């Protein structure tokens, strides 16, 4: 039986621990007063600590578990490592479509898949190890942080006084209120990466990013995967065409899809879990070995004694901050998942930079000014930045969308990655980019060019003049800009052009 409370204790795990929470670590003797005390050494906390220390601030960084936070231990890093191997298996199975051949049977060594994942975690943990942070002049404390007043926090028996503090404690998975689930036991992102055997069958509850990514990955590892989503589409925030393409892709992989379906109860029968589901009033059951619940995340606001510091919060929305990321205590700021709706590593890092500027240098940087893209790393990936059409129309902004299908992009065709599209939404009557959605094998890479354009106020006219390397899939962005330019050739322009050339 797999112990899901901790990953296997191998050399990679030990290397990770040695970097992220070394045994025998001695907390530094505390300074008289810190310029900045940061609680939480995830992506937000680390970014803030590095930025503040680089500017000469006296910084304390407090972590109760592993440096690197969810992203390294139980989030983006392990999931993307698994997804890469899963994609490899999918490509091996589709070898014939690429004119290739796979000698013999494709067999999956789940243990080696997970070992690779731990090796990658260990490697990436080196860059942010406790010792390296200390070398940068950051005082690293391990232990539970508790505010003892409006300008002090206690950790491991020491009281640290601060001019400013930043809470970046992240979030954790929500427990879905499904009768029987807690008693039966279930997987979340906190323990799914501790698996040592691939479950023969897996029910994924929820069709959000994590649910879809892992449903596809485990299916590609050979699990029978059933996904139940209590909505008409996956990724309800995304455009319906994107969600439809994802749904088709999951179905092609062999994931059993149940949309508009709620999980109503769970119980155990022998070694297996019986799950009752309801779709449009019809009740049915599935029997699985494991259940992965991927519904929502709750901010980590408990146990810090925020009340003592006068920091207002609630258990659903987290720490309440203004547009400058300042809490109800003017000395205390927050960044990342503990206070943001957009719970992404890059959003945590961007908000941490704002918080440091505003806290230490009387900055007036605003959270609302950020352009935050995001991506769901399924195959194909689904990435978005800026406004959706619906959001623009709700604000009475007329929108035109320029769409390029990946099947019209040469590199996508040569790569056998033709599924998807680039949609760029512009304000009607101008070339101003309001938002964009990319569905493509490497959408996460491609969206960055569009984020750059939006944040730099580069319109489609200038984008059309940017030379893109050929052949690349990102050329789709240029093709969309070209499509926009063709609409500018009005009848009158064409007529004038013809008359000029007739000379």
């Amino acid at each position: 039986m797999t112990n899901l409370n901790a990953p296997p204790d191998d050399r990679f795990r030990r290397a990770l621990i040695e970097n992220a929470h070394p045994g025998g670590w001695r907390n530094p003797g505390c300074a008289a007063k810190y310029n900045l005390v940061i609680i939480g050494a995830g992506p937000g906390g680390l970014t803030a600590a590095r930025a503040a220390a680089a500017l000469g601030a006296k910084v304390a960084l407090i972590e109760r578990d592993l440096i690197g936070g969810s992203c390294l231990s139980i989030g983006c890093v392990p999931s993307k490592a698994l997804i890469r191997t899963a994609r490899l298996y999918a490509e091996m199975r589709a070898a014939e479509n690429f004119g290739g051949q796979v000698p013999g049977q494709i067999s999956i060594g789940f243990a080696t898949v997970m070992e690779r994942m731990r090796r990658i975690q260990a490697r990436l943990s080196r860059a942010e190890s406790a010792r390296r942070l200390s070398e940068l002049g950051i005082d690293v404390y391990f232990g539970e942080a508790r505010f003892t007043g409006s300008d002090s926090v206690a950790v491991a028996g020491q009281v640290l006084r601060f001019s400013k503090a930043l809470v970046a404690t992240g979030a954790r998975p929500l427990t879905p209120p499904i009768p029987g689930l807690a008693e039966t036991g279930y997987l979340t992102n906190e323990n799914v990466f501790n698996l040592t055997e691939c479950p023969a069958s897996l029910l994924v509850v929820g069709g959000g990013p994590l649910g879809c990514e892992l449903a596809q990955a485990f299916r590609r590892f050979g699990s029978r995967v059933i996904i139940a989503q209590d909505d008409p589409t996956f990724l309800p925030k995304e455009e319906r065409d994107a969600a439809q393409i994802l749904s088709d892709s999951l179905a092609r992989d062999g994931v059993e899809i149940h949309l508009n379906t709620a999980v109503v109860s769970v119980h155990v029968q022998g070694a297996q879990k019986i799950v009752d589901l309801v779709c449009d009033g019809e009740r049915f059951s599935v029997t699985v070995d494991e259940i992965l619940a991927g519904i929502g995340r709750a901010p980590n606001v408990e146990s810090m004694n925020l009340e003592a510091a006068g920091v207002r919060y609630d258990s659903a929305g987290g720490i309440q901050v203004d547009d400058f990321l300042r809490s109800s205590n003017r000395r205390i700021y927050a960044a990342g998942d503990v206070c943001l709706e957009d719970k992404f590593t890059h959003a945590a890092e961007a908000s941490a930079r704002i918080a440091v500027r505003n806290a230490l240098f009387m900055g007036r940087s605003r959270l609302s000014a950020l352009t935050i893209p995001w991506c769901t790393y399924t195959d194909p990936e689904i990435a978005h930045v800026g406004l959706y059409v619906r959001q623009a129309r709700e604000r009475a902004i007329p929108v035109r969308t320029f769409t390029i299908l990946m099947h019209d992009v040469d590199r996508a065709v040569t790569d056998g990655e033709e599924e998807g599209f680039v949609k760029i939404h512009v304000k009607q009557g101008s070339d101003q980019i309001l938002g964009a959605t990319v569905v493509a094998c490497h959408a996460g890479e491609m969206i960055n060019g569009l984020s750059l354009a939006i944040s730099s106020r580069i319109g489609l006219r200038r984008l059309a003049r940017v030379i893109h390397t050929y052949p690349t899939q990102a050329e789709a962005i240029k093709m969309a800009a070209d499509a926009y330019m063709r609409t500018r050739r009005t009848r009158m322009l064409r007529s004038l052009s013809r008359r000029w050339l007739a000379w």
Partner: protein
Amino acid sequence: MIAQECSGSSDEELLDRFQRAAFDYFLSHSNSENGLVADTSRPGAPASIAVVGFALSCYPVGVERGWMARADAVARTLNTLRFFLGSMQSEQPDATGYMGFYYHFLDIRTGRRAWQSELSLIDTTLLLAGVLTASAYFNQDSASETEIRACAEAIYRRIDWQWAQGGATTVRQGWRPESGFLHYGWEGYSEASMLYVLGLASPTHPLPDHSFRAWTVTYQWESIYDYEFLYAGPLFIHQYSHAWIDFAGIRDRFMREKDSDYFENSRRATYVQREYARRNPYGFAGYGKNCWGFTANDGPGFKTLTIAGRRRNVFGYAARGVPFGPDDGTIDPCIALASLPFAPELALPLLRHMCASYPQMIGDSRLPSGFNPTLVGEHAAGWVSEGYFGLDQGLLVLMIENYRSRLIWTLMRTCPYIGAGLRRAGFKGGWLS
């Protein structure tokens, strides 16, 4: 045989032949006692209320074309309307309807709910379009025709559109006695235009004005293959409401903003379909400038096949669409031909191509719901849908007629509810002026 006959026929002769064959579906697959019409020609098929709506709209075409005596049309229509007015409306799970709406599928014999189907807003709307077409056409003072008009009025007035919002701003897609409202609404442009027009025009329980606006907020105006249009993938979305309403020259706020109209929009959608088939990104057999038509239709069944060394997933009845898919190589020739009013220059060559290249799939001049030449079959058409679907045949009759004589469009302009609903939705100009 049909290949030679078609090549020697004029366009008018060809259309007459296919329209008549489609019309005959309603004579041969209906229950004369209650007017219900089978969803498909397959044995044991239940009645579909939407197909009944098409049937009611087709009878005037039959009369005008001389394929049916007016008295026969009156009798069929009256039987149908009497059934819908008199059948059980209640929360009982085996009723015919509730709150004025009707279940999607009914037992063709008893008229009770079949297949545990949902109380369907869009299918009730299509039924209602037929009811109002009959009311507009049968305008004589005879007792029967007077009763037709009275029944139609009563059926329409009884519908509680506000209840169908289920507390939301827009209307829901349906309701079940077992579980209440289906928890998805109408997102993006769809065939629901007629639904909103009739809902807004109701003299008894009208939808609020803002419901149409709330729906159109979800629209996406896209440039695809250099055609700018209000996007929807399956072609039927660009046709169903247009079978009854002539949208040429009338514009709502959205179309005024885009300097277009819904008729022009359907024309562009047709061109996008053809362009997709010409590009044929997934290399399906048959696709080309005269072989397209991607919509909600029958398919070869849900399975994975390896064809010429390539893994293909094919589907059963599914909403196929372009350019985002799903696409499994299945073409619907009916929906392509029904594009006739919008793009006859595309639809007529397509019909001739179908006759010349796939004559075996055309039985008695009737087109199937789908065929898939990528799949190996007994002939070039590959897999061919068994039997015929009432929706396809009804749409063909109406769209060919609108192309030939504009009969249905002209009739529905006289229906006060259509004009009132369009105006409340913000349509102006053209024939509404």
